[in-house]
């Protein structure tokens, strides 16, 4: 019997729901969470992965109606290549998170009693994300979207005994709702032209440029807010670190990609027309996000906050690629457009994999040391070698270094950008290379950022007592990280194989695939043509490994013993942990050069005991420039509205009557 991918997807949703249901009982039986709930979660991830792979391999579109929904608006689900790809993405990460979480949640069993909340909302969160990707009408989409937002809100507020977390969660909820509203309005525009909320009806809609632009802007704002594009990103570095680490992995790794999915679905599929003006907007916002994201990440000393800011950067890169795709499609270069589109998809899955890996690593460190502050860490590689190794893989991948996966998608994006000579408009031709320059700066800064993270946290010597006592983390946590680290390597080594698989998506959405990508065999990635550019990822890796082995064999000769001694350090006294370069010192040159982009509060103050303390606060300028004025505006508006509140109930009823009359008049 052949199991259809759609059925598998249904199984995945059911398993996720089941895991949520079972966890209700874990208040009584805490072991349920580890023994039943997380395995169900893992299986849900596996089923989603299988469903996605099946769709990508088989091709075709599966549609069905659910026996749910409103009488005149039944919920439809649809599994096409785009959904399939994002199902894979969700599946891979949830699978790894499921493997990882038993070890991680063990510490919660003793501490707090809200295990049902943790397991339940995790299950609902996954359900929501799966359904968003499967939805075939705006109604189910919005319900699933809100399910995803709300359940993740509760997960962000999981450690609600800390005021900062409550505040972060509230901010998240607020922003998620404003974003949801924008998406809803966007669907409203599409539905009113397309006669119905089903996606198929929207695809048929014949929109004028003006209305299409309105729908585009609404979708861009709504999904951009969820994805964390600058300047709508402020909730992200607050909310993601507040959640438990495996949930942070899901949020940064997967939920942001679901927002990317929504953007692609609405703009590329439903609106289905492209204009260069839109692509310029996407490119500009994407570039700003990438650059600001990584610069702010460099300034952070809280490991999880840093990772969250780096998500802003990576989302920026994805949107740069999407913007390039829109630009080339709108100017009639479908081949280059699909290269950029594939680059965006590839970077989506890459970021999902390595960011989840890094958050899991941060979780492992947090688990054993209870420390998120880089300034207290050091020397963790020797205390937790496996986590150290996997984290290193994550760092290399995110810094876009060959032969790992982050490099492949950046390379593809560069290749698309370098086809700018094909454009007719001279202005666009001169702007695209500047975007490429931004991408290059971003990549170099990302490398600096993750040298800082790895060098300060895992190398050197421990800077505090509890970090010195760090131990290995449970096997399940290492396993979860190992799976993702392997994925990083595979995605980096075999880009041709994965792009062949991915190819179904641009073929279905844009009508053009990358015919050339693997035309010269699986060894050579040639997105446009062999003469234009080629990258032999497996060869590079093989030669690297052979040369390394050869070098070790020639020089190591059976690993010659190396005599240990005190560090030389130019003949000064043997270095103590306090003499190491700190994380803020590492970032100081960059802080100084890009100083105007940050809100820096730096100085030193005397302590009661006569010593001096140095303090440094780097705050996001987006708050002062964007959020506080908006907040002030809202407050002023509310003060005006307050006048309506007289306390007299008949006045209120009068307002109600008036509103009713106006509405009736409007609809008449």
């Amino acid at each position, binding site marked *: 019997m052949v199991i259809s991918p759609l059925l598998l997807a249904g199984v995945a949703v059911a398993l996720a729901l089941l895991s949520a249901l079972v966890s209700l009982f874990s208040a009584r039986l805490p072991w349920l969470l580890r023994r039943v709930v997380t395995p169900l979660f893992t299986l849900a991830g596996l089923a989603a992965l299988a469903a996605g792979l099946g769709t990508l391999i088989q091709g075709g579109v599966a549609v069905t109606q659910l026996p749910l929904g409103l009488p005149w608006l039944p919920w439809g689900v649809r599994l096409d290549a785009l959904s399939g790809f994002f199902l894979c993405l969700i599946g891979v990460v949830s699978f790894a998170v499921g493997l990882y979480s038993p070890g991680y949640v063990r510490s919660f069993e003793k501490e707090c009693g809200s295990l049902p909340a943790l397991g339940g909302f995790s299950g609902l969160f996954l359900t929501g994300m799966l359904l968003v990707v499967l939805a075939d009408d705006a109604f189910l989409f919005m319900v699933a979207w809100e399910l995803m937002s709300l359940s993740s809100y509760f997960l962000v507020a999981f450690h609600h005994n800390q005021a900062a977390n409550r505040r972060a969660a509230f901010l998240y909820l607020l922003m998620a709702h404003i974003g949801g509203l924008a998406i809803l309005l966007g669907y409203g525009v599409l539905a009113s032209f397309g006669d119905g909320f089903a996606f198929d009806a929207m695809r048929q809609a014949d929109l004028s440029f003006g209305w299409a632009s309105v729908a585009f802007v609404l979708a861009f704002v709504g999904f951009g807010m969820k994805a964390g594009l600058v300047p709508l990103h402020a909730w992200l570095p607050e909310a993601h670190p507040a959640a438990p680490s495996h949930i942070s992995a899901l949020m940064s790794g997967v939920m942001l990609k679901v927002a990317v999915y929504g953007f692609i679905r609405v703009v590329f599929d439903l609106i289905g027309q492209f204009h260069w003006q839109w692509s310029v907007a996407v490119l500009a916002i994407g570039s700003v996000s990438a650059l600001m994201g990584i610069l702010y990440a460099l300034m952070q000393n809280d490991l999880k906050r840093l990772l969250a800011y780096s998500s802003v950067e990576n989302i920026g890169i994805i949107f740069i690629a999407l913007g390039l795709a829109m630009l080339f499609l709108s100017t009639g270069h479908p081949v280059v457009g699909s290269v950029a589109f594939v680059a965006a998809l590839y970077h989506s899955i890459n970021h999902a994999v390595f960011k989840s890996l890094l958050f899991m690593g941060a979780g492992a460190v947090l688990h054993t040391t209870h420390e998120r502050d880089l300034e207290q860490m050091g020397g963790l590689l020797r205390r937790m070698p496996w986590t150290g190794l996997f984290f290193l893989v994550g760092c290399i991948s995110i810094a876009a270094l060959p032969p790992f996966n982050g490099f492949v998608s950046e390379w593809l994006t560069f290749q698309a950008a370098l086809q700018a000579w094909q454009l007719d408009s*001279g202005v666009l031709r*001169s*702007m695209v290379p500047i975007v490429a320059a931004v991408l290059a700066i971003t990549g170099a800064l990302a490398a600096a950022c993750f040298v800082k993270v790895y060098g300060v946290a895992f190398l050197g010597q421990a800077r505090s007592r509890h970090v010195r006592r760090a131990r290995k983390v449970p096997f399940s946590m290492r396993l979860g990280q190992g799976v993702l680290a392997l994925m990083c390597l595979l995605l980096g080594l075999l880009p041709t194989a994965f792009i062949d698989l991915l190819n179904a998506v641009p073929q279905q959405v844009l009508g053009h695939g990358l015919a050339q990508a693997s035309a010269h065999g699986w060894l050579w990635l040639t997105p446009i043509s062999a003469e234009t550019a080629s990258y032999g990822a497996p060869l590079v890796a093989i030669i690297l490994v052979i040369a390394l082995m050869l070098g070790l064999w020639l020089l190591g000769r059976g690993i010659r013993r190396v005599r240990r001694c005190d560090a030389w350090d130019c003949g000064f006294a043997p270095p103590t942990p306090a003499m190491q370069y700190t994380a803020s010192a590492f970032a100081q040159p960059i802080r100084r050069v890009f100083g105007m982009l940050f809100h820096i509060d730096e100085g030193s103050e005397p302590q009661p005991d006569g010593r001096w303390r140095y303090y440094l606060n780097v705050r996001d300028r987006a708050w002062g420039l964007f959020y506080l004025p908006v907040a002030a505006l809202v407050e002023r508006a509310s003060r005006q509205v307050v006048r309506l509140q007289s306390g007299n109930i008949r006045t209120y009823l009068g307002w109600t009557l008036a509103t009713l009359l106006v509405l009736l008049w409007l609809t008449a």
Partner: protein
Amino acid sequence: MSLGELPFLQQLTLVLAAVVLFTSFALLEQARLVAAIHAFAWQGLLVAMVTAIVAASGGYPHLFFSAALTLGLKVLLIPWMLHRLVHRLQLDRHREPLRRPALITMAALALVIFSYWLVLPLVQQELLFTRNIVAVSLAVVLIGLLMMVIRAQAVVQVLGFMSIENGLFLAAVSATGGMPLVVELGVAFDVLVAMVLFGVFFFQISESIDSLDVDRLNSLTERAEEES
């Protein structure tokens, strides 16, 4: 027609025009006064060379005269005058670092793209091979103006003004093969007179407010007096 099909001299013109643009950036970001004057002289020299080459390859003999005029005036006479002026005002070692160099560079690059966009319709007409230089010369004009906006030092502002004139001259040469000789003579004379007047003004400003920082002139507004 591609670049490779142009004769060598015309390719050289394009290269020189590109370097003119670079000198504009150098002028914009030069902190030291004396070095800025040198950058201006280089720019003049390049403009003179472009003029001479256009004259040679395009067959406009009167442009040789313009080139010689530019060489004499903007490469030798005016920089020399400015040098002497700076020396007498004891500003030889004066530095005025830019406050936000990266931002200003980006603004100037944006101006280049903007001027390219502006002249695109012109480029599409089949004019001389030099029509692409019009974008460069417009950019030189705009960057000169930007320079006058952001720099507070009076001498540097004069350099900005002169470089605007360079840009205009380059535009005239590249778009239409130069202005009529009478106009050019008139402009040259104007520039010279302006330079002399500027010199007189510098001494006056420097004597009355003891600095050449034009921001000090802000105190001449009515409001400032009321406040103080």
